[in-house]
């Protein structure tokens, strides 16, 4: 087996025990939850014990815990996350319905964070200890002291309500929603495919504030790291050599320094993605964005066990896949990495 293939297999094998630990953990904490899902679903007080017992049996929560655990794991293995207590739909179906919304938000949030964070970090590093550097650094530090949900609400109040530049919440305007038919679930893609500029602009406008909010959380961290990493690289011998050869400063930075400065940032990308998913919970809640993360919050409020379990498992698997991709992509960015 070639080096990279063996590495991928090794990484995959390592992902399995990690996931198993996480799955077990999720199962355990949800089984000690003080709220009773049957009571939450039936609502009200005067329910006959027979009815409760019947529903308990129907939902399978009356069986021994080990049996439940076995079925839970086996179900996940087959891609069956159970049925939502509230909607009676398969959890997997609900999740896949909402997943494109989260992915779209995360992608554009990441894009914003990447451009803004990396850009500001590089600018600060190339102008180290000048006023612009200090300004950017203060902004970086300030950005991770800022609550994400508050930042989103501020954008809503001032840019959406007061100035009316952007819609306050949702993915698509009310009137357009009637005629707009989403095929893939990625609204921006669908609107471009529809060829209708009005829909396209509307969908894009809905995406701006949530993407900035989510990206903002990461941009400070990314900016700080880019600055540090860029400063380090700019002190390297090969940069001095390039400058001594008379290479233009712009080219030194763009082609000699940038690529090398990226390496340490990509290394921690997996963890940053976890921060992004955590931020998605708040962003989706603030902007009524119908994604996986807001589905999880509503499931928790409704004590919908299979839905909570399913969402967390789903997010865990998703993050494991991202981590795997990140690990493999090192070799593309840094050719020195060999497996």
């Amino acid at each position: 087996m070639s080096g990279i293939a063996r590495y991928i297999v090794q990484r995959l094998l390592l992902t399995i025990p990690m996931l198993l630990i996480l799955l077990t953990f999720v199962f355990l904490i949800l089984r000690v939850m003080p709220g009773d899902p049957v009571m939450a679903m039936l609502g009200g007080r005067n329910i006959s014990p027979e009815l409760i017992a019947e529903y308990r049996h129907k939902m399978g929560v009356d069986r021994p815990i080990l049996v439940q655990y076995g079925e839970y794991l086996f179900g996940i293995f087959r891609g069956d996350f159970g049925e939502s207590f509230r909607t009676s739909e398969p959890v997997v179906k609900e999740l896949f319905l909402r997943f494109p919304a989260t992915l779209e938000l995360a992608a554009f949030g990441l894009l914003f964070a990447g451009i803004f964070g990396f850009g500001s970090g590089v600018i600060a590093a190339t102008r180290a200890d000048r006023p612009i550097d200090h300004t950017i650094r203060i902004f970086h530090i300030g950005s991770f002291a800022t609550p994400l949900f508050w930042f989103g609400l501020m954008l809503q109040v001032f840019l959406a309500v007061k100035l009316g530049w952007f819609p306050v919440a949702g993915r698509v305007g009310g009137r357009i929603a009637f005629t707009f038919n989403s095929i893939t679930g990625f609204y921006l893609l669908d609107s471009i495919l529809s060829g209708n500029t009005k829909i396209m602009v509307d969908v894009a406008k809905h995406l701006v504030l949530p993407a900035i909010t989510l990206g903002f959380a990461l941009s400070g961290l990314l900016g700080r790291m880019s600055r540090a990493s860029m400063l380090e690289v700019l002190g390297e011998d090969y940069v001095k050599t390039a400058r001594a050869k008379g290479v233009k400063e712009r080219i030194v930075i763009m082609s000699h320094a940038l690529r090398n400065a990226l390496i340490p940032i990509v290394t921690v990308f997996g963890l940053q993605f976890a921060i992004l998913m955590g931020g998605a919970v708040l962003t989706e809640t603030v902007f009524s964005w119908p994604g996986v993360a807001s589905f999880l919050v509503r499931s928790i409020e409704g004590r919908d066990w299979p839905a909570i379990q399913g969402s967390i498992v789903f997010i865990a698997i998703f993050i494991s896949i991202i981590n795997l991709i990140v690990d493999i992509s090192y070799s593309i960015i840094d050719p020195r990495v060999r497996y």
Partner: protein
Amino acid sequence: MSKNMGQTQNTGSTFLIRVIQWIVRKFSSGRHALRGQTILKIGLVVVFLFILTTGLTQIEGLTPYHPTKYRDAPRLEGPSIRHLMGTDQLKRDVFSRVISGGKASIIVAFGAVALSMSVGAILGWISGFTGGLLDRALSLSMDAIYSFPSMILAITLVAVLGTGIAPMIWSVGFVYIPTYFRVTRAEALQVRETTYVEAVRAVGASDVRIVLRHIAPNTVNAIMAVSSFNLADAILTVAALSFLGFGLPPPAPDWGFDIQNGQKYLQSGSWWLITFPGLMIIALSLGFGLIGEGVSDLVNPKRKRKRV
């Protein structure tokens, strides 16, 4: 047996004394340590002011208006001389609520960090020192938790444990355990291989003694640097939990909850309900962040020269 226990107690208290000595040496005996540490000083002042204000405003009568009982202001009015930060939909004074609304944040942040620090550090010492299968199992479990979004984990845990201050301490604290575990384990692994550990082992020191007297004190620097940044992050996590409705029950003043409340009146443009509690969260989190910067410079002087 009794001799062993005496020794454990002795070494345990030694570690505690070391930590206190560390704090005293770095901070209060301060003229040396704090000289030139502007960032650290600003951070300490900010945090101290917040604790003082929050503490004092819990006493009835020390806020301009009562944060919950006063209901005679005009409804939903912007900032004015009488009501510096405006009024809310229940005709309460926002300023009085904002200056007294930090109780939950501060208590939970300190409680959670104390919890995760002690559990994480102890597990880290043991894991790094003993190595082997236990170390592998612990590292894998911690990595699994660490790789998962901490915000989502905290929300799930708080939903399991219920709302209020104690459940928030447990859930936020749990989420940060891997952070301390990783730091202390890494240090413990290094110290374990040093000659002085070999030497004390040769003279017959017990494992417990080695961990508490030789490994633990060497991890204090790293723990201190991590914990101040951790406090800054905890403030934000607590605010987010309160915002989602898992915090103090109303009508207690609380920044996160007040922001959630303000969200309902956002469409009418009542910006003051959201803006001011948020600025308080930023200021407090920034205060802890600055302490973190300062402490990192203190424990790693090389860092200061090329501060990131």
